């Protein structure tokens, strides 16, 4: 990566790992359509098979349970609509009657939920950013067959959600659980059976793999109701010529991310160092979800009175890339929906920026961020909080 830059926006996308670029290049050179029976086809197919094993390995699933898609958004849509339309596991043949989604889900889950012709209800989160289990219990108690969507780690705050507990409760009432694990994969150990979710979603480009690849991991394939038809790929559950090079890269990224999980203390140490220094720079700075269990790479911080848009622009000019809310199409920087769901005051939510680390992050990146942010705070907070006409006049001379 360009050393003139400090990239700390891994939750939006990660730089592609060099080994992955090499694998993508190799697969591109070989060519071939995996559906072709000749040698070129078989070679292409081998890349896809290997990737399927690796992605299964990342989440503790069998290769057969992995369905490749064009990315997490497609996988979220496919997973949610499949659960909504199909029978509950255990042979209970009743389609879902309601959808419950947590208040902090990704836009793709939100978007998919609202197109399924079922009532959509929102399950609140606590001020700490964790799903409110008490509220969920009440909602589940109201009856019906629910499809519940709960992400494993939130993209804005990094707060981990009680997916296994929720799975047990949802299954107890005959419902199903969809889990978007995009931000958790490669950052914490994952095991499909332990999580208990019926469908799980992983994205390639958040792991340091290429964009344009993702997976829906399904405990029971008979639940899947295909969205893209024609051609019979992915066991007839997701048609379209496989993105061979992209999947090859995804597979390798999954292997490498799995070994990163084992060394996650390194990232966590960097992140903790960052948070300690933030509090020195600005004792009033707040870290959202600090008291909850979080993935080790994410800090969502705010200092009241600092506008997040101004912050990210200043940081960008200083060569530091961070984010002020999820990367999506809107282009508008609103107070993040997630922080509002946590009950953060509007002024604080509008000040929030997200710093997210990844495989190439170093201590130097943290130094650089702290220096740039410290300078910004000194300039803006000082002016806003303690105007000093004398020093300003002195500066003008």
């Amino acid at each position: 990566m360009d050393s003139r830059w400090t990239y700390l926006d891994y939750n939006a996308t990660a730089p592609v790992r060099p080994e992955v670029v090499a694998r993508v290049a190799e697969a591109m050179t070989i060519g071939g359509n995996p559906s072709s029976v000749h040698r070129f086809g078989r070679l292409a197919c081998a890349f896809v098979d290997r990737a399927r094993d690796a992605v299964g390995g990342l989440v503790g699933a069998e290769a057969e349970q992995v369905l490749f898609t064009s990315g997490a958004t497609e996988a979220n849509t496919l997973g949610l609509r499949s659960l909504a339309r199909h029978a509950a596991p255990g042979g209970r043949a009743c389609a879902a009657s309601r959808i419950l989604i947590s208040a902090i889900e990704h836009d793709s889950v939100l978007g998919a939920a609202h197109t399924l012709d079922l009532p959509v209800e929102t399950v609140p989160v606590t001020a700490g950013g964790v799903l409110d289990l008490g509220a969920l219990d009440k909602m589940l108690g109201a009856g019906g067959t629910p499809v519940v969507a709960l992400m494993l780690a939130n993209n804005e705050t990094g707060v981990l959600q009680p997916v296994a507990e929720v799975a047990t409760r949802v299954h107890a009432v005959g419902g199903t659980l969809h889990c978007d694990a995009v931000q958790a994969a490669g950052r914490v150990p994952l095991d499909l059976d332990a999580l208990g979710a019926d469908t799980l979603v992983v994205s390639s480009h958040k792991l340091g793999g290429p964009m344009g690849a993702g997976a829906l991991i399904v405990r029971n394939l008979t639940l899947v109701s295909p969205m893209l038809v024609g051609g019979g790929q992915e066991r007839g559950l997701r048609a379209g010529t496989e993105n061979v090079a992209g999947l090859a890269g995804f597979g390798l990224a999954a292997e490498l991310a799995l070994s990163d999980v084992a060394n996650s203390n390194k990232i966590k140490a960097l992140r903790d160092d960052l948070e300690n220094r933030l509090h020195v720079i600005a004792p009033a700075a707040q870290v959202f979800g600090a008291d909850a269990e979080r993935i080790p790479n994410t800090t969502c911080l705010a200092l009241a009175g600092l506008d997040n848009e101004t912050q990210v622009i200043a940081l960008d000019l200083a060569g530091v890339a961070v984010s002020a809310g999820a990367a999506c199409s809107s282009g508008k920087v609103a107070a993040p929906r997630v922080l509002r769901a946590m009950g953060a005051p509007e002024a604080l939510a509008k000040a929030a920026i997200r710093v997210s680390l990844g495989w190439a992050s170093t201590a130097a990146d943290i130094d650089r961020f702290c220096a740039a942010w410290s300078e910004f705070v000194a300039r803006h907070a000082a002016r806003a909080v303690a105007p000093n006409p004398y020093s300003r006049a002195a500066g003008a001379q």
Partner: protein
Amino acid sequence: MSTMATKATEPTKSAVTRNIPLPIYLDYQATTPTDPRVFGAMLPYFTTKFGNPHSRSHSFGWESEEAVETARGQVAALIGASDKEIIFTSGATESNNLAIKGVGRFYKDRRNEIVTVVTEHKCVLDACRHLEQEEGFKVTYLAVQKNGLIDLNHLREAVTDKTALVSVMAVNNEIGVIQPLKEIAAIAHEKGAFFHTDAAQAAGKIPLDVEAMGIDLMSISGHKIYGPKGIGALYVRRKPRVRLHALIHGGGQERGMRSGTVPTPLVVGLGKACEIAKNEMGTDNERIRALSDRLYNGITKQLKDIVLNGDRDHRFPGNLNLSFSYVEGESLMMGIRDIAVSSGSACTSASLEPSYVLRALGVEEEMAHTSIRFGIGRMTTEAEIDYAIETVVKHVKKLREMSPLWEMVQEGIDLKSIQWSEH
């Protein structure tokens, strides 16, 4: 026979002396090799310019977004569209699903009929079948003539003022015939229906102009035009505006028609592939036509009873679908295994069922079984074509020598007159 067996190993030797790497790739309809210039253009977007194109808070995002918009322009330029009419998808299968289901569902209340053709790609047929079986649409599947082209009079009869969409592919993937797009569009428009064309095999191969041809929606694939797999586009006309229901929802990317992070390197690759295709279509096609003629003439000069499937004139020359009479298809495929070809569409070639496209042309089952699709493209060389001619001719001759049917035909017996006894 022992001399035969020895001879069978010879092609490898002759290929080595000619310095041709084996196997030879002649399956350009299944997928094309990625042009090195395409991968070259993509590479920086993996390594240094890796930003999420939807990130609004730093230069990585802006840089990536700019690259996406440049690519959009390159795709639009290839087909005479404007940038805003191009929606990026994960490939032609998604584009076809989006066009058919998306438009069908949007206009369903007023128009719930779709007209398509029996020789369409499986994903078009399956999307139509889904609407027919699950969502109450009426779908008309037009037959084709012996040459693979539709009869415009039949189309005119099938399109009604309840028709929402007419979907006819531009170039057929199995036999390469080019349908009369402009005429089809005019017939669709007379009744107020939109015209969608699956141009996965056509974009970059034959001149396409959405304005001049009256195309309302067009599906494009990256990996059929020397670009990457996992990326495609759907052209959606803005004047008059075509509306559709999205299949994939979320962040609202691609003007709400297709959510999900736009994969910058893939999009850059598709854009570059379109740019190259636009600039080099003329010279590419001249070469391809010459190689195609060379292959066809080379084979038919030495072998009789070879049938070219699909119309002789209205075709993309890079597709040569031939049936070899009196030869067992599987044995021929085994014999010429140094040449990567397809005996049907790639999606279904693993099955032994005769191709539904050839059957739709009225090709008899035996002849459909002995058909081979030779796909010729940008990287094909004259030496490869010569090797293919030599190998195919040798193996067809050998198989015919072993065929009792061939022997009878040579003796002047009309096979159709024989009363085969049933055992």
